[in-house]
């Protein structure tokens, strides 16, 4: 028989997992790009990879402290944003989409290639960079928590840091989006020529937005690798599309949308995979092997996203009124 308790508790664990926080932060960065500024960035996975590798390489190869490694990652993503933005932000929106998707793949392949194996670890990736972060942990050793949320001191430390960063990023984004800066950014999304005609340097604003959202993605990439190892195959384009799915699920130009979207996404994903695996074991789906069943959850997520786009196109937190005027 199916163990429903295990399925639900496994799903509940995802609610506050660091991976959920990482996806929420990356989606918030994408909300700044796509939801507020109208920049079609399809390379968020590239920004996350730079964060992960920037942090890991500067710790392992150069012995940087945690704050130094974080700064290296953010510096790398700023340079990446400048390289992407300088040639494309003057052009139409679609060019940025093409260039970012290609650039993110270039970044991933550079980290995968054997040429730099000594530094990047090639396809095997990197591990053993968590010492510095764990060393900052003020929580005494032991297991804490209740029910499904019972972790050791490192896991709690990681969750607290990850969600604090997400909360700060939300506050920051909320504050700048209600300021005159945010007004210019939203104006650019609507019609950049009109904003230009009002004396705003549109190019500079788009660049600021690209750097800011990219930096969010980079920090998300660091949070993402703290509970696991750095593996290049994690940064495929599908990562970007999952983040887009989260963003659309929550609402593209909202602050809480990416956070709640990420929670819903991961809880549903975990629920589906737990349910299907056990349903196959229990013989409920006789025509399927357990390997096939492992892939089915992504199909179900795809169906769920299609349903959202059809029946709630503005997302969970989006403003229905905005859709009344879609061109």
């Amino acid at each position, binding site marked *: 028989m199916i163990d429903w308790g295990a399925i639900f508790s496994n799903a509940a664990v995802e609610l506050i997992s660091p991976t959920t926080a990482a996806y929420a932060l990356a989606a918030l960065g994408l909300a700044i790009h796509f939801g507020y500024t109208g920049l079609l960035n399809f390379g968020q996975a590239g920004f996350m990879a730079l964060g992960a590798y920037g942090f890991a390489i500067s710790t392992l190869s150069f012995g940087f402290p945690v704050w130094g490694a974080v700064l290296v990652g953010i510096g790398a993503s700023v340079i990446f944003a400048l390289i992407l933005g300088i040639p494309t932000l003057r052009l139409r929106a679609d060019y940025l989409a093409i260039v970012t998707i290609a650039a993110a793949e270039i970044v991933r392949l550079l980290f995968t290639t054997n040429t730099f194996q000594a530094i990047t670890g090639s396809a095997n990736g990197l591990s053993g960079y968590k010492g510095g972060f764990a060393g900052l942990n003020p929580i005494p050793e032991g297991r804490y928590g209740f029910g499904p949320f019972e972790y050791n001191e490192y896991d709690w430390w990681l969750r607290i840091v990850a969600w604090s960063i997400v909360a700060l990023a939300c506050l*920051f984004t909320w504050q700048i989006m209600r300021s005159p800066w945010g*007004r210019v950014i*939203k104006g650019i999304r609507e*019609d950049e*020529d*009109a904003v230009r005609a009002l004396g705003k340097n549109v190019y500079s604003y788009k660049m600021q937005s690209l750097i*800011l959202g990219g930096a969010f993605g980079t920090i998300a990439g660091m949070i993402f690798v703290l509970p696991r190892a750095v593996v290049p195959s994690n940064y495929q384009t599908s990562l970007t599309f999952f983040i887009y799915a989260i963003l659309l699920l929550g609402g593209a130009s909202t602050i809480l949308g990416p956070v709640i979207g990420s929670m819903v996404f991961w809880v549903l994903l975990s629920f589906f995979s737990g349910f299907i695996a056990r349903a196959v074991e229990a013989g409920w789906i006789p025509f399927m092997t357990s390997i096939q069943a492992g892939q089915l959850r992504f199909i179900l997520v795809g169906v769920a996203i299609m349903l959202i786009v059809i029946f709630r196109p503005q997302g969970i937190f989006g403003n229905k009124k905005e859709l009344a005027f879609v061109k």
Partner: protein
Amino acid sequence: MSNNTVPSNKPIKSTDLHIGEAEPGCKKRDPILVADGVSRTFGGLKAVDVDHVEIPRGAITALIGPNGAGKTTLFNLLTGFDKPDTGSWTFEGRPLSGMPAFKVARMGQVRTFQLTKALGLLTVMDNMLLGAKGQAGENLFRAIFPFFWRKQEEANKARAIDILERFKLDAKKDDYAASLSGGQRKLLEMARALMSVPSLVMLDEPMAGVNPALTQSLLDHILNLKSEGMTVLFVEHDMHMVRHIADWVIVMAEGRVVAEGDPHEVMRNPAVIDAYLGQHHDEDLGEDPAAESEHVEAIKELLE
């Protein structure tokens, strides 16, 4: 800033704007914009080829001409939205050529668009506030701390309400701009341009697609700009409107300035009739009946 400075039926015309004969490229007493040798080609087509043109300060100048005459292209060039092949121009004595559009706007030369560009998913108020210049809160680092910009924001809001009241849009201030009618969007675009306190307002077909009931109020707003000391340059097809409010008319055809002058005089200019002939020879060009029969005579003669 009041609503009653200009009577709506008989606008006061500025006269004596030019020096010497009213011919293409003639000198003005007090030009705000002077352009020299401006040309722009699209492939094999020379869209704009203007030797010399001056826009008089403090007056309403109309830029007219048949479709494809290069009026909007000239507008785009002068405002930095397009780059010319050759040419230079100055605005209030400062060279503008090659300057990006946002810097042109900051110098006090703002424009509107033929196809209205209201920022649909921003409220009417946000549209207006976007027009204000020199906002501290538009800097990312100051944006984080509201005390840097709150005071300025309040002042801008008060000014925006003031302008919106004149344009009778104040009741709509919290609605999305996308919910406005076409004519209201034109008004909003003009109101938004005023937020930047411009010295030269360039309107690209302000009357296109506006319902006749709103036309008169739009005309009054344009006349108000002049009475507040702004210079207006506008592109228009409606000759009635041109005759009604313009102090000076510049006629373009096939990329060149073919005639200039007082609106009543210029419509009798053979070059203008030539420019419109073939396309518009049987249409009312907006002359009054007496002048019109004369006009028709002129065309008939030309046809013979």
